[in-house]
């Protein structure tokens, strides 16, 4: 799931204090699960901002709202009028949501990010999130026993480990496991260690962000959508 963490309150206050009417706009899917930007956190942030404004003697009206997801236009529709009555939207959705709403409002009003979106992660225990995938667009997990070297090895080596492995930990920090130490152990257990003996050729990174912004287009659905629009247009429904 997408994991994020709320921006430090002082940073948010610096962003918000110049405005008159602010809407803290929560998203109730991924960022709610990680207790960063859901409807509940939006409400809490709103209350904190109101009290900070009162303390600083700043005249600021702050309200909060939340919808299921900030990455689908239809969810925004019910609140579009309400949103337009504010002069700033502080979106606590992930970065996708902030972009999507900013595009939707087309510059009519600013949309600021309330949280720092960080990574796709797992939740080994309540309140603890670890990065396990970097969205590189060309998965190699079948070669490394299900442990991703691109994201979990600081140097994204395909022929690790490097010389910096220290007691199974990475040179970057002794709390970070060395991915290749884990990969070797895992492949041993799986009985396929010799797969690691071949030298992996240089990767094609273009499938990731290095290849420029990406999009996925499912033709069988888009064709259906176009057809829908054509019928609607001909019947003059729209």
């Amino acid at each position, binding site marked *: 799931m997408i994991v994020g963490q709320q921006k430090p309150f002082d940073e948010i206050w610096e962003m918000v204090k110049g405005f008159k009417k602010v809407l803290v706009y929560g998203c*109730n*899917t991924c960022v*709610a*699960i990680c*207790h960063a930007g*859901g*409807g*509940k*956190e939006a409400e809490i942030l709103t209350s904190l901002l109101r009290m900070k404004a*009162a303390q600083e003697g700043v005249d600021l009206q702050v309200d909060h709202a939340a919808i299921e997801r900030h990455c689908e236009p239809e969810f925004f529709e019910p609140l579009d009028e309400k949103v337009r009555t504010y002069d700033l939207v502080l979106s606590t959705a992930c970065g996708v949501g902030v972009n999507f709403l900013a595009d939707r409002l087309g510059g009519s009003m600013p949309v600021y990010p309330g949280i720092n979106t960080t990574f796709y992660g797992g*939740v080994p*225990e*309540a309140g603890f999130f670890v990065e396990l995938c970097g969205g590189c667009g060309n998965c190699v997990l079948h070669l490394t026993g299900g442990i991703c070297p691109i994201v979990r090895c600081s140097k994204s080596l395909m022929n690790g480990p490097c010389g910096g492995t220290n007691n199974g930990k990475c040179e970057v920090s002794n709390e970070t496991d060395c991915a290749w130490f884990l990969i070797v152990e895992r492949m041993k257990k799986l009985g396929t260690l010799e797969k690691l003996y071949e030298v992996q050729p240089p990767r094609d990174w273009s499938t990731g962000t290095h290849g420029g912004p990406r999009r996925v287009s499912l033709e069988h659905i888009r064709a259906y959508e176009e057809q829908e629009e054509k019928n609607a247009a001909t019947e003059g429904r729209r």
Partner: protein
Amino acid sequence: MSVLSQSTKRGSVLIVGGGIGGMQAALDLADSGFKVHMVQRDPSIGGTMVMLDKTFPTGDCAMCMISPKMVEAGRHLNVDIHTLAEVTSVDGDAGDFTVRVKLAPRYVDADKCTGCGDCELKCPKKVLSEFDQNLGQRKAVYSLFPQAVPNTRAIDASQCLCLNDPDRKRCRLCEKACKAGAINYNDKGRELELHVGSIILSPGLDRYDARVRQELGLGRWKNVVSSIQFERILSASGPYKGVVQRPSDQKHPKKVAWIQCVGSRDNHNANPWCSSVCCMYATKQSIIAKEHDKNIEPTIFFMEMRAFGKDFDKYVERAKNEYDVRYQRAMVSAIREEPGTGDLLLKYASEDGRLITEKFDMVVLSVGFQPHGDAEQFAKTFGIETNEYLFAKTSPFAPVKTSREGIFVTGIYQGPKDIPETVMQGSGVAGSVMAMLAEVRGTEIVKKELPPEKDVTGEEPRIGVFVCHCGTNISSTVNIDEVVNAVKDQPGVAYVTNTIYACAQDNQDMIKQTIKEQNLNRVVIASCTPRTHEKLFQETIREAGLNKYLFDLADIREQCSWCHKGQNEVATKKAIGIVKMSVAKSRLQEPLQSETVGVTPACLIIGGGIAGMTAALSLADQGFPVHIIEKDPELGGLIKHVYRTLDGLDVQEFLKDRIGAVNEHPKITVHTGVEVKKTDGFVGNFKTILTDGSAIEHGAIILATGGVEYQPTEYLYGQTPNVITQRQLEKTLAEGGSPGTGKRYVMIQCVGSREEPNQYCSRICCQDAIRNAIAIKERNPAAEVIIVYRDVRTYGLREDYYKKARDLGVIFVRYDVDKKPQVEQTGSVIQVRTWDYMLDRELSLTADWLVLSTGLRPHPTTEHVGAMYKVTRNPDGYFLEAHVKLRPVDFPSEGLFVAGLGHAPKNIDETVAQALAASGRAGVILSHEHLAVSGIIAKHKRELCMSCLSCFRVCPFGSPYIAEDGKVSHNEVKCMGCGICAGICPAKAFQVNNFRDDQILAMIDAAVESEPGVVN
């Protein structure tokens, strides 16, 4: 169990004595369908435990634990409490007893009196309070203690000015003060005749009156107090409000001495038995005193520190290390008061033989138990046999049965013991009675007929507010009319009035009347604390056809008028705020249905030892099918290697007939050589798959996984055939082995116990050693037995055997944990070197046989079984019960119980008692077709839930689960309504009934709105 003729069996039980043991039995029986009559000599139930301040080993306060049970017993539909009552005669036999009870006059009408206490204020006659052990005072019209149940006042005829005036003219102030007209000076008391199926004796014991021991000066020197007096001194509701001070000059004592075994373990005008609890309560009192006042220096004078119970040794170690309590092994011979100062001079011999006189500011005598003065007559009335000390005569194999069929015993009247064992016997005796009267269960209980519930959905809130005076308790500080006016115009409030006593019977009828007349759909009563009166008022509005959860109680007495006496204006403003908060919450209340869930009336018992079999037989006799799951190929458990009890009874015989009874019983299915693979479901609806694939449906589970013997590695065990354990010695003796003349047996105690990492007493090894020593000496007095011990812990009535062993010539040599005995072997001769404190030099003993008293360990399967049922274990690996004192056989999650060595090391009779307790507790659940689920639980809205599992991980009761559709669901039956899930849920999908977020926010707004001029 002999099957009694069907004829006239009664579905009711008489319980003589309202202490914690009697109360536990009463609640278990009443909850499982039996009418209970409780006869109590004092004006209130509670017994000895209510006098205590804190309890060992956890330090919980006694009142907080026992008062909920007293309130529940006081209000229980099927428990009638007859106070100031005594049984005069008993006829008939098991199943149908006719009992005559004499009730002394109370001079206060229980139906009218609301316990408001106005009469007490006005009564001029001050008297020494027995409850406060004559340290405090009470009035002639009094309640035994503030939280008394029933809290009806009583007049002490011997002290009342009016009652001592033949023509009743003098004083009569209480009659004038009582607005309820409850005082009745011509009360004559009355006679009752009860027909009951069974009788349970739990009269408790008296405390030894130490004044008889003039050399200790109780009653002569003011600063010598008994331990029960010190409990009252420590208690926050005691005479000194919990401030530790000396009776003579109220000075804060610095050096305080406790003297152990006062009146116990001593034939010279005292009692020969050990009272079992004094070592531990002295340790507790010294710790609690130190907590009250950190410059107190406690010293305990003792012979042996008997900390044999669960976590007791750890408690004593904490006393020594954290509270630096000084343990002085010496008996004080005399106490003199230093003239003028009130300090006390204690004379004793130090360990190295010097005679010492030490000055102390205060002395506490740890007095033991002894039967009531009328014990002999008491036993005659009930026709039961007693032992020579007038305790009820019982056998270790049936510790709760008296000599007379149908009459049972529980608590310290059966023998000195502490609160958890008493509670266990309470539930145990309930189990036995349920077994005996199984077929008449439910025949005599009262079921309340309730009118149909009015449907209020969709209606605008019409709240009725009743502001109570509580006599003068509230109205003397809070201006009731001002409150009524302030609330009148609150939105949603349809009707406001005030009442003198909201909880009195007439006012209850008035409330019901008003609900109908004013067509109210919500009720707020502003009076006392919901903790004691919420259930009462909920029942009342339910009787008026209103859903009982459409009610809120604003506490303006305990949390307003009583604690702001004299500040009327501010207290009234606060009371208005409190009532407005309740109204705000009430406005948002919705009717709640409490679902019920079916119960499969069968029980699964894991472990086929004595505990498992005893519980199985008792449950089967109650009519419930039982499945015993035994890992080994045959039943028996650890007891297979035990031959004799301390008092010489044949254990193998007992085991054989117990196994026979289990195998023959039609309701019991024994699964041997098999384990539990998996258990699903919740209380009343468990489904278990065994490793052999068979499936069992049942409503309750008893964990009786038992224990194993510690296999010693020290003292050359295993390296020479002459070093054996007590078990092996017992086996050779049982097989007729006769000890040779002049042969010397050296025994070493506490092998594998009372030392890190096993800092606990295994409780049975002292008894094993003494029994074997007596057997050797009786077979051949010329054989020598030397027991090298740390503390001989033959507690309770076992003390006699310790004396018998000494009389037979067994030599006892004490050792200390930091100077343990050294064992060497030269050739075939075993040499034991140990330091003798008495002779103050090292002893070197040659031993033909070295016998090790090895301790106990939890059974290895405890870990696996514990994990499977999500029950925690204490650091020593024994199962952790729900509450050390009051729920010793329950687990936090419902429907799960524990018995036997898996809970903690214990003797055979204690295991049998705990097994019966577990069967009693399980019987309470299995006796219901349906289990009502409380209305105050968390409700889960699946459409809001995103299955983020935060609730799943924090819920202590495991009620959220992942359903078949992969999404999170909520099992309302397991829910205890604590709301931790609601606190963490990011989607606000969980809300606790009657504590919803919108209600709490409404209360917050109401709380602030009533404070004008609040700086925003």
